[in-house]
């Protein structure tokens, strides 16, 4: 039943009483319990609460009361976003010791995005798997399970929001939330053939998102189509007094008949798989047929984006993850003194998280700060200026989301550098703080990335919809 539904026609059918919310959710959980054994998109389910909420929605409908905009819409939430009363693991043993199923961190309050979704009537089905602390590109770095790509279970769903992408692709929900620090929404969206938006930095409140790299992190929607993505974005966006970096979107983009798109010449070079390149080129052709004009542009600092990103992201992570000291929350390993307690507790971090914290500590330490961190911050300005210059000439920029098709489980796990290269087309967007969507193209697990200037989400949605109207 859920297979053919979008948010809008779900709402219509629910209001017309073609099904009740309760019966819809009972069937949905039946499906999830059966089919998620193979995919492992979820870390935990919220069945009891969800069924209770569904009953409440049915009451509202029978009383003919005014219905909220996402009334009864099933959604899945990445397990680094706090939902009051539910366990939140961030995919890490440090927050939820697997040997102690009852233990672990339970979120004491809702993230702002969750508050907004609940107010809008959305119903949370469960929390989805992710790379530990959102650090990874395949969801294999989760401390708990490996999520499989719904279109080919031998392959990864991408990451770090792999569980959220797989949950949408498998129709376990109508939308999910992910978080994107260097491509963690867009790359899994591409790999799982769903739509994913990394909003402009500040467009969506980060309050209640477990921080990885605060100047790069954004929460965003993952959906079956562009319209649904727009609907969810409209609900979750906005300034929040609890996140001082959040802003209100005021900018209006003039309606222009002709859309001018730039294709950066630096993105279609070595390392890109031929299937990705040809899918990208056929998609561009389809946009041309709809009257979109293309021109070649240059983002000259592209090749420096990945090293710049890893320095900045790891530096911020080393500072953000200092809070996991075992004292205030999470797992705790007693040592002989306080420092021994810290380091024994923090030994529970997974390999990749340790690697990034230590790299971050290194680039921030005396004697190395100027050579690494400060230099990376300067390159970050260069990368941002590249985009600013490009957007003087064109309205939007198109690139592939990832240089490769989904890779095999285990293929890149032992070589961190190889894994980092998965993000080569997505990290610049986070460094510059601009918004970008990933839409599935040519019925392949390939995403087309549409990048716009700050706060140009509406323009990105309108353009992305052109492709769906084939």
């Amino acid at each position, binding site marked *: 039943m859920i297979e053919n539904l979008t948010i809008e026609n779900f709402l219509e059918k629910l209001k017309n009483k073609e099904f009740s919310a309760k019966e819809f959710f009972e069937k949905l959980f039946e499906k999830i319990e059966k089919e998620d054994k193979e995919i492992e998109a979820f870390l935990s389910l919220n069945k009891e609460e969800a069924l209770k909420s569904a009953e409440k929605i049915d009451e509202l409908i029978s009383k003919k009361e005014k219905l909220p905009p996402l009334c009864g819409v099933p959604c899945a939430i990445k397990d680094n976003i706090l939902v009051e009363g539910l366990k939140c693991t961030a995919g890490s043993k440090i927050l939820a010791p697997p040997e102690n199923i009852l233990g672990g961190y339970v979120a004491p309050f809702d993230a702002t995005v969750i508050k907004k979704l609940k107010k809008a009537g959305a119903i949370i089905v469960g929390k989805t798997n992710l790379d530990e602390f959102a650090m990874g590109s395949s969801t294999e770095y989760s401390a708990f399970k490996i999520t499989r790509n719904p279109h080919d279970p031998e392959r990864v769903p991408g990451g770090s929001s792999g569980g959220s992408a797989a949950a949408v692709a498998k129709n376990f929900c109508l939308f999910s939330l992910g978080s994107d620090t260097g491509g963690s929404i867009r790359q899994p969206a591409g790999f799982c053939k769903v739509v994913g938006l990394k909003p402009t930095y500040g467009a969506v409140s980060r309050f209640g998102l477990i921080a990885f790299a605060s100047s790069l992190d954004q929460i965003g929607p993952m959906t079956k189509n562009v319209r649904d993505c727009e609907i969810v974005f409209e609900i979750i966006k906005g300034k929040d007094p609890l996140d001082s970096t959040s802003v209100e979107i005021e900018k209006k983009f003039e309606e222009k008949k002709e859309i001018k798109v730039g294709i950066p010449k630096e993105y279609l070079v070595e390392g890109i798989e031929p299937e990705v390149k040809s899918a990208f080129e056929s998609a561009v052709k389809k946009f041309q047929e709809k009257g979109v004009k293309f021109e070649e542009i240059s983002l000259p600092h592209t090749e420096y984006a990945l090293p710049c990103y890893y320095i900045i992201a790891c530096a911020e992570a080393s500072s953000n993850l200092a809070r996991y000291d075992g004292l205030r929350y999470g797992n705790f390993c007693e040592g002989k003194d306080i420092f021994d307690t810290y380091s024994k507790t923090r030994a529970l971090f997974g390999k990749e998280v*340790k690697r990034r914290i230590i790299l971050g500590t290194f680039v921030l330490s005396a004697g190395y700060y100027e050579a690494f961190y400060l230099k990376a911050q*300067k390159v970050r300005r260069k990368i941002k200026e590249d985009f600013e210059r490009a957007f003087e000439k064109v309205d939007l920029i198109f690139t592939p989301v990832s240089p490769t098709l989904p890779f095999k489980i285990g293929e890149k796990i032992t070589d961190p550098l190889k894994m980092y290269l998965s993000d080569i087309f997505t990290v610049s967007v986070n460094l510059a703080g601009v918004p970008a969507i990933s839409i599935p193209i040519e019925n392949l697990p390939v995403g087309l990335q549409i990048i716009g200037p700050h706060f140009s989400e509406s323009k990105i949605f309108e353009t992305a919809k052109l492709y769906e109207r084939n």
Partner: protein
Amino acid sequence: MEKNFEYFAKLAKIYLEEKEIENFEKNFLKILEFVRKLEELDLKDVKPLSHPLDLENVEREDKVKEFGDEILKEKLKESFCKKKGDFLKVKKIL
């Protein structure tokens, strides 16, 4: 690198097993070599950028502000590893 990987692991307060260190160090050196690519650029007059938007620092008076209710306070305390009354109990620092 004058200081070794173990030194920075200690700074980061992360305990590593002997056998972990070697593998970490190998990959770490590879990553360092990779990020050294930035040295190719001339960045003499470039101002560092720490944040993608032009935001100003939000300052407020140093006053206690209530966040949430008693129930929330109880929930926050539930996560403490050890507590004494309303306080988080930790090992002595000095």
